[in-house]
C-alpha cells in the first residue's frame, strides 16, 4: 500500500488543463505578433528590389541575396557621403565605450560614497540626483549646448561622452547605492580598521564585490547610449554622428527609388549590438537585479 502511494507520487502528474492551453495560446500569439515586424524586416533585407516591388511583404525571398546587407554596411548614402553605416557603427563604439566605463565608474563611486560615507547632506544630494532622472532631458539640451560651447566641447567626442556620463548619473548612482546598501556595514568598518581609505576600500573591496551589478549597469548603459538619437544628433558633431543618426540619414536619403532592402538591413545592423548584449547577458541581468534584492 505504502509502496504504491510513493510510486504514484514519484512522477509529477502532467495536467493539461484548459487554463494552461489558453495561456500557451495567448503567449504564442503575443510572441508571433511582436516577431512579425522582425520577420518582415529580415525577409525584406534579403530580397532584391524586383521582389519587393511585387508587394508581398510576408513572402519568403525567391532569389535570396546578401547584397543589401553589404551595401548597407559599405556604400549606403548618408546625405552626401556614401560609405555605408559602418562609419556610424565605429562612431557609436567610440561614444559607447568611454561613456559606459566613465558613467559606471562614477556612478559606482557615488553610490559607494552615499551608502558608506554617510554625510549629513547625503540624503539631500541623493534626492536631487534622483530628481534629475525625472526631468525630461530635452529641457536641458539648450542650456547644455551653450555650456559646452563655452568650454569648446560642443560637437566633439569628449563632449558627447561627457553628456552621456552626466545623463547616466542618476540611474547609475541609484543602482549602485542600492546594491551597496545591501552589503553589511560591518564589512566597511572592518576595512576602516584595517586602514583602508576612501579609494582603497572602493577599488580593492567594493568593486570586486560589484561584478553582478556592474554587468547590469553595462547592459543598461550600452543599450541606452547605443539607442540614443537626439543627444548624439545635437552634441556629437558632424564627424562623430552615432549609428542611429546615420541610420536615419540612410533612410531619409533617397536618390531615385527607395531601397527598402538596404534600409531594412541597415536597421537590423544598427540594432544588433543591443540585441547581442541582451542575448549574451540576459541571464546575468536577472541575476544581478535579484542579487541586490535577496541579500548579496
Amino acid at each position: 500500500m505504502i509502496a504504491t502511494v510513493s510510486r504514484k507520487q514519484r512522477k509529477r502528474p502532467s495536467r493539461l488543463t484548459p487554463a494552461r492551453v489558453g495561456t500557451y495560446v495567448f503567449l504564442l500569439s503575443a510572441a508571433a505578433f511582436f516577431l512579425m515586424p522582425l520577420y518582415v524586416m529580415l525577409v525584406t533585407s534579403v530580397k532584391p528590389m524586383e521582389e519587393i516591388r511585387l508587394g508581398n511583404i510576408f513572402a519568403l525571398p525567391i532569389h535570396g541575396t546578401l547584397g543589401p546587407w553589404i551595401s548597407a554596411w559599405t556604400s549606403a548614402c548618408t546625405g552626401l557621403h556614401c560609405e555605408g553605416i559602418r562609419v556610424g557603427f565605429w562612431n557609436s563604439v567610440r561614444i559607447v565605450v568611454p561613456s559606459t566605463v566613465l558613467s559606471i565608474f562614477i556612478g559606482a563611486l557615488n553610490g559607494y560614497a552615499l551608502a558608506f560615507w554617510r554625510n549629513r547632506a547625503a540624503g539631500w544630494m541623493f534626492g536631487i540626483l534622483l530628481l534629475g532622472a525625472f526631468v525630461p532631458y530635452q529641457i536641458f539640451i539648450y542650456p547644455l549646448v551653450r555650456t559646452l560651447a563655452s568650454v569648446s566641447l560642443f560637437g566633439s567626442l569628449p563632449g558627447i561622452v561627457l553628456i552621456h556620463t552626466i545623463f547616466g548619473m542618476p540611474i547609475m548612482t541609484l543602482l549602485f547605492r542600492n546594491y551597496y546598501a545591501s552589503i553589511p556595514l560591518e564589512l566597511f568598518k572592518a576595512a576602516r580598521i584595517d586602514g583602508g581609505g576612501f579609494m582603497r576600500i572602493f577599488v580593492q573591496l567594493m568593486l570586486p564585490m560589484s561584478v553582478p551589478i556592474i554587468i547590469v549597469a553595462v547592459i543598461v548603459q550600452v543599450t541606452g547610449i547605443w539607442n540614443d538619437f537626439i543627444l548624439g544628433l545635437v552634441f556629437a558633431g558632424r564627424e562623430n554622428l552615432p549609428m542611429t543618426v546615420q541610420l536615419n540619414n540612410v533612410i531619409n536619403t533617397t536618390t531615385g527609388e527607395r531601397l527598402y532592402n538596404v534600409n531594412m538591413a541597415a536597421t537590423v545592423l544598427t540594432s544588433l549590438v543591443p540585441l547581442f548584449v541582451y542575448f549574451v547577458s540576459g541571464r546575468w541581468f536577472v541575476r544581478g537585479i535579484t542579487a541586490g534584492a535577496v541579500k548579496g
Partner: protein
Amino acid sequence: MGNLEIIEALNLEVIEGEFLVLLGPSGCGKSTLLHAIAGLIDVEDGEIEIAGQNVTWADPKDRSIGMVFQSYALYPTMTVERNMSFGLRISGTPRDEINRRVKRASEILHLQELLDRKPSQLSGGQRQRVAIGRALVREAAVFLFDEPLSNLDAKLRAELRRELKELHKQIKSTMLYVTHDQIEAMTLASRIAVMLDGHIQQIDTPSAIYSKPANVFVAGFLGSPSMNFVEGNLEVSAGIVRFSSPSLGVDVSAYPFAAAPVQGHRVILGFRPEHVQFFSDTTAVADLHVAKISLLEPMGSHMVIWLDHLGQRFSANASGVRDPVVDQAISFAIDTGRVSLFDVATQQRI
C-alpha cells in the same frame, strides 16, 4: 543616527592585559561604546585614550586596535590569507613580516589548511576564527570583540569561547568584549562591566558581580534562572535584623549592611535558586517555609524546581531533593548568608 544620545556620561578604565566584558541587554549602548573606542562612531564629548595616547579623533587604523565583528565581516572576494593580510598590505608592511604574522596567527587559530580558501567555503566557526586572525595579525594593543559568537550555534559557541579564553591566556593582550550572553561574560571575563541605558551599573570580577550585585538590574540580569525577588520590610529589634514580607520571613542579621539598618525600611530581598535549601524533617531549622512544587525543569546536570509559595513563584536548584514530583509539598529555607538586599526606591544594594 541623528543626535540621539546613547551614552551620556561614562568613565571606564581598562587595565592592561585584562579581559573586560561589556555585558548588557540589547540597546544598552555597549556596542556603541565599543564602536566609539574603535573610532567608527564620532564622540560628541569626552576623551578616549589607548595605551596612554589620546585617540579621540584618531583614524581607526591609528588606534592600535584589532576588531572582530558579529557578522565576521570577512572580505568575500579575498582568500583567508589575503583577508588576514589586508591591513598589513595597506600599511606597507614588508612581505616577510606579513608572512610571519599570518603564519603565526594561522597556527594559533588552526587555520593553516584554509589559507587559500574563500570565506564562502568556510563554516561559521572557521569564519569567526579567520576574523579573529585578522585582528591578531595587527598585533594591536587592544582587541575589540563585538558579540563575536552570537551568530554561531550553541555547540560551536562553547568551543570558540574556550578557544578565546586560551588565546587570551596565550597572548595576554588587553581584550574588550561586548556580549549580551551572561555565560560568555562569566566564563571569559577577568572583569565584567554591566551596562544599562548607557550607564555602567557595576564593574567587578565575575564572582563579585554574581554574589554581590550592585542593584536589582544586575542581580536579575546574571544567573539562570534569575534571582528571586521578594519585597518586604526590615524589622530591627535587639540586635536582630529580620526581613519580613507576607510570604517570607528571613533573619538577615549576618548581612553586611553598608549603613545601619533602619526599622521599617522597604527593601527587596534577592536570593539565587542555588541558595534555596530543602529539608525533609521539619525540625531545628529557623524560618522554614512550606511550598508546593508547581513545575520541574530538568537541566541534565541538575533540576530547577519552581515553587509556588503563597502566590509567589520562586525558582530553586533541586540539589538534595530525591525525585521531586509536581504538586508535592516541600519545606525550604533560604541560605541567609548569601542573600542580597536592595532599597525599593533606589533599587541599589544596601
